[in-house]
């Protein structure tokens, strides 16, 4: 989230598209009801299904799964054409005026530089024209045909209301009503919040879906303001924390990068990370990258990380591929390239696409370790459960170790919520049976592995032997010790380089990442968490819910990264003189000398409003309507069909899915076509359950007991399916049996002259737990992920369906 859950009450308009907040985030959704109650806010839902969120919406519009980019580009076109643009904001705070290179272009659904062999773009033309002074060229009048604004106008020109209706299936009048409601928020005193979740991420172009709405929000001037923003509703408690502390295979804590093979040494690694400003006077905060990186390396290897050995840079692994994401890991398992797999709080048997392939992969391991509070399908993948898990147990040689762990209610630590709040919590119960803290288990493994390296040496023991492990009880690091380590501390007495005044004594906790140094005198495990545990104590444990003037900021409640800031880019809430765009929604303002207000300014406190741009993490100082080469699949979002779609890409019928999404050879043959699989399927959650956990709980199991799929009355009639009857649903990858919920909440759509039926497949059932045995959508979904972040395409794929008279038999 750019903003916070509590800030949603400040909005005038909520658009839920690519998510289902009432259903999947019912507690957070209370802030939507607050906005409706206190500001008369309206709620729009755009979704293939009439969801529980739609049931309390002011306006609902249907959309074909996987066609969101066309809708969003159409909305941008409509706003440009109808002057629903926050002009002052666009001119000053976006890159609308920046000139794009002459050799950049788009045709046939592809941007310049496409290489079909490599399935990749040469992105060199996707950039600004750079002047002799090293700064990007601009045209403040926005009239130059090569300026971003004109390029965008040209790019979205094709997305007329008729085009949108044809692609998305959203009736033209409904699309236009949504555009009008959205367009109203271009006024400086009106705003809109975008609430989205996996309905946008789980596509082969998920990141571009989100880009599309972010661009729309920038054009409307809705980023950085109270009640605005791009608000990703994180799907798991603490999944935000997971991304923050670098559990992605290509990241290390604080969104720093694991080096690649092309960066064998420290100098090369830093050479592409100088982040020089592209406009005069801009902050370009990532220029501090070396400070965060050195502090991280000092946290990892302490005295073994020195200036002489480049802070032990050689200890870091160097990636030979962009990422070892889950899809790649299971592909490698299938090629016998993985011997041992640790599954910690993760149930791939239900959460990774193409379950048949997942089972095959797990069956080829030598050993699988599952750390989980529950007995999962993954730890029982080898067990035959009839049709629900029809495996030949005797042929599976994988040794499986099931290590019972505590659950969140039994341990202590911080959970990071969608709004980036680190909220400390305390155990509410004693762990049952033999359940152990994850930290204890991992410490035990580490200490034993280190001992083996100590005794036997090995190819490269240094990173293991030198790892910092200074915990009071080495067998079990405490949550407080780990949190203090992530915050960081001074390793020597620090003085202010300008004044010489003392800042911190050696051993003291840093109070902000501004104190971190690149000379080895500080350490911090996760720079963005600096300030969470200072010399004043545990900031995450603060529970002061005072909120002056009811702004929703709650600055003394817990801690929000970065720097306890509650709304990112909040400098953009004020105009070029530093006055709030909307006085009734004041956030920060320039008092002539410094920025003051209700939130921690997202800019240097004394940076003059007419000089320093609000988007300080960008080299330009402004936000990007044109994202240069930052994304693999284009500097603007362009309509792409899902890999399995009922229609060809209208721009380029030869193009299947996202042209740069990675596709493994073995999976290319496992894609279905619409003549064999005529119906569009999509997956989702239900309120009664949380993922695959709560089916273990008899209460949740009673409230939603059995796997079902949802279809329209029209499709039911066409296929002779009765309400409550049993059906078989199959795709190119597998088949499932389910009960049929026949509903008016899903209606057929017309796209490209064809009737499109949608089959809704909720994801909460498996073969373990208290609920009735069932399946999940992953038995059916394709093994393909987003081009930028590899999130699997769970939200749009093809299936077929028929009535099934009997219980399935193995």
């Amino acid at each position, binding site marked *: 989230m750019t903003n916070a859950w509590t800030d949603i009450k400040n909005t005038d308009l909520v658009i839920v598209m690519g998510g289902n907040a009432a259903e999947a985030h019912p507690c957070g959704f209370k802030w939507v009801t607050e906005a409706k109650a206190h500001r008369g806010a309206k709620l729009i839902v755009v979704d293939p299904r009439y969801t529980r969120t739609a*049931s*309390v919406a002011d306006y609902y519009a249907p959309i074909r799964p996987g066609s969101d980019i066309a809708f969003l580009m159409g909305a941008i076109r409509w706003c440009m054409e109808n002057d629903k643009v926050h002009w002052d904001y666009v001119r000053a705070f976006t890159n609308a005026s920046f000139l794009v290179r002459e050799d950049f272009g788009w045709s046939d659904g592809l941007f310049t530089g496409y290489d079909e062999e490599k399935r990749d773009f040469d992105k060199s033309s996707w950039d600004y024209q750079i002047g002799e002074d090293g700064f990007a060229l601009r045209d403040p009048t926005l009239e130059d045909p090569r300026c971003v604004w004109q390029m965008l106008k040209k790019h979205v020109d094709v997305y007329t209301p008729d085009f949108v209706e044809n692609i998305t299936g959203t009736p033209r009048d409904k699309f236009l009503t949504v555009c009008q409601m959205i367009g109203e928020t271009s006024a400086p005193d009106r705003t809109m919040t975008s609430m989205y979740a996996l309905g946008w991420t789980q596509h082969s172009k998920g990141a571009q879906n989100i880009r599309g709405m972010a661009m729309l929000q920038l054009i409307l001037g809705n980023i950085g303001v109270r009640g605005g923003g791009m608000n990703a509703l994180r799907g798991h408690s603490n999944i935000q924390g997971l991304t923050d502390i670098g559990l992605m295979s290509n990241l290390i804590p604080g969104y720093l990068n694991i080096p690649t093979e092309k960066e064998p040494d420290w100098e090369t690694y830093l050479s592409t990370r100088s982040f020089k400003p592209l406009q005069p006077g801009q902050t370009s905060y990532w220029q501090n990258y070396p400070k965060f990186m050195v502090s991280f390396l000092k946290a990892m290897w302490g005295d073994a990380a020195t200036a002489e050995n480049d802070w032990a840079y050689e200890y870091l692994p160097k990636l030979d591929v962009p990422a070892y994401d889950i899809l790649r890991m299971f592909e490698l398992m299938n090629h016998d390239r993985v011997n041992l797999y640790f599954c910690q709080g993760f149930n791939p048997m239900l959460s990774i696409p193409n379950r048949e392939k997942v089972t095959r992969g797990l069956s080829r391991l030598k050993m699988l370790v599952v750390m989980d509070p529950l007995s999962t399908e993954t730890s029982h993948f080898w067990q035959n459960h009839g049709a629900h898990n029809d495996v030949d147990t005797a042929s599976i040689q994988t040794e499986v170790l099931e290590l019972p762990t505590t659950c969140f209610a039994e341990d202590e630590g911080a959970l990071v919520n969608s709004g980036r709040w680190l909220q400390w919590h305390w155990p509410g119960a004693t762990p049952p049976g033999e359940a152990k803290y994850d930290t204890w288990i991992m410490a035990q493994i580490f200490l034993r592995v280190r001992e083996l390296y100590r005794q036997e040496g090995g190819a490269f023991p240094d990173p293991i032997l030198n790892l910092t492990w200074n915990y009071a009880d080495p067998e079990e690091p405490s949550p407080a010790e780990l949190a203090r380590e992530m915050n960081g501390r001074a390793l020597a007495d620090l003085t202010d380089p300008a004044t010489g005044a003392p800042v911190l004594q050696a051993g003291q906790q840093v109070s902000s990442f501004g104190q971190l140094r690149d000379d080895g005198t500080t350490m911090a495990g996760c720079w963005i968490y600096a300030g969470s545990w200072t010399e004043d104590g545990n900031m995450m444990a603060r529970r002061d819910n005072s909120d002056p003037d009811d702004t929703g900021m709650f600055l003394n409640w817990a801690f929000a990264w970065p720097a306890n800031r509650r709304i990112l880019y909040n400098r953009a809430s004020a105009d070029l003189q530093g006055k709030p765009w909307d006085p009734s929604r004041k956030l920060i303002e320039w008092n002539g000398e410094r920025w003051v207000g209700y939130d921690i300014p997202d800019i240097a406190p004394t940076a003059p409003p007419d000089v320093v741009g609000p988007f300080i993490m960008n080299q330009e100082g402004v936000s990007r309507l044109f994202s240069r080469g930052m994304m693999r699949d284009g500097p603007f979002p362009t309509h792409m069909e899902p890999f399995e779609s009922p229609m060809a890409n209208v721009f380029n019928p030869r193009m299947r899915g996202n042209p740069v999404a990675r596709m493994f050879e073995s999976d290319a043959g496992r894609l279905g076509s619409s003549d064999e699989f005529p119906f569009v399927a999509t997956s989702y959650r239900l309120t009664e359950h949380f993922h695959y956990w709560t089916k273990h709980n008899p209460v949740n199991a009673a409230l939603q*007991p059995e796997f079902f799929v949802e279809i329209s009355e029209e499709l039911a009639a066409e296929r002779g399916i009765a*309400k409550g009857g049993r059906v078989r649903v199959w795709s190119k990858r597998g088949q499932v049996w389910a009960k049929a919920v026949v509903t008016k*909440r899903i209606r057929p759509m017309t796209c490209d002259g064809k009737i499109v039926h949608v089959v809704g497949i909720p994801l909460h059932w498996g073969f373990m737990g208290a609920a009735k045995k069932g399946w999940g959508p992953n038995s059916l979904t394709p093994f393909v992920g987003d081009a930028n972040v590899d999130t699997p395409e769970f939200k749009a794929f093809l299936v077929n369906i028929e009535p099934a008279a009997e219980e399935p038999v193995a």
Partner: protein
Amino acid sequence: MKDIATAPTTAASNPPVQPTEAYYNAGDIVRISATRNVPAPERQLTKLAKLIDVSKCIGCKACQSACIEWNQTHPDVEENVGVYENPHDLTPNMFTLMRFSEWVNPETDDLEWLIRKDGCMHCEDPGCLTACPAPGAIVQYSNGIVDFVQENCIGCGYCLTGCPFNIPRISQVDHKSYKCTLCSDRIAVGQGPACAKACPTQAIVFGTKDDMKAHAAERIEDLKSRGYENAGLYDPAGVGGTHVMYVLHHADKPQIYNDLEEDPRISPIVEGWKGVTKTAGLAVIGLAAIGATLHGLFARGNEVEEHDEQAADTLVKGRDPDDGPHHGGQV
């Protein structure tokens, strides 16, 4: 000495954490099933109400879950029969149930998914209590709560016959009748009902009936501003008003909310049915535990005579099956 709990004004406020004595007790009972001449209580408690705002409800079933947890019931893991209602009906183990109906508004042709939390309405004139032949099995407090006292229940099912909303359910295990208690045990110590506490959108709120009506008026104004011209409060006069009320977007058509009764009344047969109220009067109800007290006083009254059975039979058979909701209670 322990503190005495104060009456809750809203379910959203945090309840007290220190142990407190109940602020009302058996002395506040105003009506007792099959019992005449209940002595007038010394005081009149403030009337309470739970307000269910159907227009804010997201159908998440947190209320059902909280109800199960608080009352420690054990509903069965059933099947899916093609709908979202689970369990499929109110049961002796499920005192409240989200009922979902897909309604296409004939004026706009737009779908509306109407989700109503069903359960005991706590009528001011409770048909169940009027019909009940078992002395002390059903009581009503002066704050409006209608409570079943299972120790005195004989499992005859007349309460269901008398209920205009088809709510009570008889357990096949212990042959007692069960329904929502309005969390009388929580309310007595200053806490709101469990369902209201759990409701994430505050579609369920709880407080004095006056406060709830005032809150409803604000909500209705908001709904009218959003185009729901017939938004209104459901507090049916036919049963003297209820202590569970609904805000409906279409108050002119309560039947579209899964057959909510348009004008609920106690059947005249039950009203005129004197046979079961012949038991001798009551002296004084002490402050001892309500169940034990009532059981001791009325142990001799647990008999249903033949003409009672006949009257009940007439009632059940005489009811037009198309007349309203009959969700197949386990009578």
